[in-house]
C-alpha cells in the first residue's frame, strides 16, 4: 500500500507533486472548483512570489495564482 501524507496546499514546496484532496472552506471551494481545482487533480507549485505570497500552481493545464490564505483552505495528498 502506498503511504500517503497530506498537508495544506500552502505548505507545499516548489515543484512538489500533489493531488487535491479536499477543501476546508465551503464558500471558497466553489470558486476553486470552477477554476479547475477538482479533488483528484494532480497539481504542483510552479512558483512562489518574491515576497513569499501569493503562490502559483499548475492545475488543469494552466497556471493559477492564489494567496497563501486561499491555498490554506485546500488539503492535498503528496505524491511520493
Amino acid at each position, binding site marked *: 500500500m502506498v503511504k500517503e501524507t497530506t498537508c495544506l496546499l500552502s505548505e507545499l514546496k516548489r515543484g512538489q507533486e500533489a493531488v487535491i484532496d479536499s477543501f476546508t472552506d*465551503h*464558500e471558497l*471551494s*466553489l*470558486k*476553486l*472548483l*470552477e*477554476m*479547475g481545482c*477538482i*479533488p483528484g487533480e494532480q497539481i504542483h507549485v*510552479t*512558483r512562489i*512570489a*518574491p*515576497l*513569499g*505570497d*501569493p503562490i*502559483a500552481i*499548475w492545475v*488543469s*493545464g*494552466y*497556471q*493559477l*495564482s*492564489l*494567496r497563501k*490564505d*486561499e491555498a490554506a483552505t485546500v488539503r492535498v495528498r503528496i505524491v511520493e
Partner: protein
Amino acid sequence: MNRKLRIALVGNPNSGKSTVFNALTGLNQKVANFPGVTVDKHIGFTTFVSENGENVDAEIIDLPGIYSLYPKSPDEQIPFHILCDPNNELHPDLTIIIADGTNLKRNLFLCSQVVDLKIPVILCINMIDIVKIRGAEIDFAKLSEKLGVPVIPMTARKSEGMDDLRKAILQPYSKPKNYFLDFRSFAPGVVDSIRQVIHVNSDYNAFLVANNLELISNFDLPENKKQQILRIDEEAGFDTKQMQAKETLERYKVISELMKECVTDKSEEKKSNSYKIDNILTHRFWGYIIFLLVLFLVFQAIFSWAAYPMNAVDSAFRWMNESISHALPAGILNDLIVNGILAGLNGVVIFIPQIALLFFFIAILEDTGYMARVSFIMDKLMRKFGLNGKSVIPLMSGVACAVPAIMSTRTIQNRKERIITILVTPLMSCSARLPVYTLLIALVIPDHKLFGLNQQGLVLMGLYLIGFLAAISAAWVLKTIIKAKERSYFMLELPLYRVPRWSTIGLHIIEKVKIFLFDAGKIIIAISIVLWVLASFAPGKTFQHIEEKYRQPEMVKSFSQDEIDKKIKSEKLESSYAGVMGRVIEPVIKPLGYDWKIGIALITSFAAREVFVGTMSTIYSVGDNAASKLTVKDKMLAEINPSTGLPQYSFAVGFSLMLFYAFAMQCVSTIAVVYRETKGIKWALIQIFFMSGLAYLASMIAYQILKP
C-alpha cells in the same frame, strides 16, 4: 431575405475573445453602458455574405470574460442576465464560445454550461498554434460530435480559422443536440416548478435561476412571478451552495472523460517559454527592477515623445487663431470663436498624444500577459495597504485617467479593497494633470541638467511619485477605517506570454481616445465657453463705466492710446464675473500663495484639472492683445506680483500649485464615475472632502515654508 442576427461572444478571460470580436467587426464597433450597471457594452456590426450572395446583417456583442455562469462580481452578472433571461433585450440568437485550446479543460467548463442552456452554440478553439507547438492533439470532429455543436479550430491572432467561423455562422444553426448533465434529476421539483412560472429554454436555465435568486430582480419578469420563484426555492429547501458544488464536480467529471477521448496532451509546463520568462519577470530582484524600468520607460516616453505631436497641435491652433481673428471682423463673435471655442478645442485635442501613448503601453502590458505578473509580484505589498494585487492595474491606469481606471476596479471582487482602490486612484497623477505640471514646471524649474538628467523631467517624476505615495498612504489609513463585509479574494490566472497584437492595441487606443473626446471633451469645451462668458461680461454697466472713465480728457492727456487700451482690458477683466469670483475666494487661497487669477483657475479646475491651462490662456489672452504671438507660459512669466514687484509665479507659488493639483479632487467625470460605481453619493463626497482637504493643507505648508 435579410435577417438581423444577434450574436453573443462568450469566453474565459484571456481566451482571445476580444481578438475574435475585433476581427469580425473591425472599426465598426461602439462602446455603451449596460442599463443599470456601468459595465462597458461592446457592440459591433458586420454583414456576412453567404456563397449564394445572401447578405446577413449581424449585431455582435462582446460579453465580459467569465469563468462560469455563477457571477461573483457585477460585470459577471451581465453574461448571466443576457444568456439566462430569454426576455432580455440582448438575448442572442447564436452564441460563439471562444475557448483557449492550451487550457481546454477549464475553458470547456463554461462551454458545457452554455451548451446545457440550449442556446445555439459555435465553439471556437483558439490558440491552436501553441497547442501544436506543445505537442497536443485535439480531435475536433469527435469533440463536435460529443458536444453536439460545431467546433472550429482557430488562431485568432493570426486570423486563422476566421473564414471557417464566418461560414459556420451562416449555416442554419440549431440548439445543441446533446447535454452534459440532467438537471431534472438534480433538483426535480424545483426545475419543474420554475419552468411552470417562467418560460426558459432548458432545465439548466431553470436550475441556474433557482441558484441565483438574488439576480432575478433584473429579469424582465412581472413582480408576482419573481415572488413565486422565491417561494419555490424556499419551500423545496434548495441548498444553492450544495447544488453548485455538485454541478461543478459532475461537470468536470464529464469534461475529463471528454478530454480523454478527444485530446492527447503531452505538454510539459516546465519547458515552455512562458516558464522561462517568468523565471526572470517574477524574480525576487530582477522582477522588481524590470517593473520599475517599465514604469520609467513609460513616463519618460510620454514626456518626451508626446512633446512633438503636442507642439504640432499647438502650432496648428495658433495658426487657426490668427487666421480666424484676422478673417472675421473684430467683435463678440470673433472673440467667442477664438478665445472661447478654439481655446477649449485646443485644450481637448492637446491630450490625444499623451492618452494614445499611455494606452499604447498599457495595452501592450495587458496583451502580453505581463499585467497579471505585476499583480502576482505586487500582491503581498499591496495587501499591506488594504489594496489588492489587482489594484496595481487601476492604479497604473490612473496615471492615464482615473475614469477608466475606476471602471476597471470591477475585477476586484472584494468590496473593501475595491472601495479603497476607487478612493485612492484619483491621487495617482493622471494625464489631465500633465499639462498643468508641464506648464508650472516650465514656469518655475530651470531647464538645467542635474547629474546628467533633465531637471524638469526629474521634478515631473517626483510629482508622479508624490501622487503614488499619497495614494498608498491614503489606502493604508482607509484600510483601518473602512469595515470589511467579506473576505479578501485573489485567484488570478497567469496567462501564457504572447506577442502583442498591433491591431488590438490600435483599436484599444482609438476606443480610449474616443471616450476621452466625447465624455471629457464635451465638459472641457462647455467650461471653456462658460469661462469666456464669465471673463467677457460683467455685472451691470461696469464695462461701459470703465470705457467712459478712460475717455476723460485728463486720461487721454497723460497716457498713450496703447496704454489706455491695456488698462481698459485689465480693468474689465478684474471687474468681470470671473474676476469677481476670483476675488471672493482670494482670502481663502492667499495662505497658499495664490492671487485672484489663480483663484479663477482653481474654480474652473473643479470641473476638470486641465481647464487650468485653458483658463490661464483665456485669462491672459483676454487681458492681452488677441493677435499676440506670446504663449501662455511667456505671459505668465511676465506677470508681476503688484505687492512685491517680483514675478507672480515664484518657485514657492509654482510648487504650492503643483501640490494642490497633485492632491485635489478636481474632476467632475471622476466624481460621476465614483458615484455610479459605488452606487451612491457617500463615497464620492468622502473622496472630494479628503482629497481637497489634503491638497489645501499640503499646499499651504509648502508655500509657507518656501515663500521668499
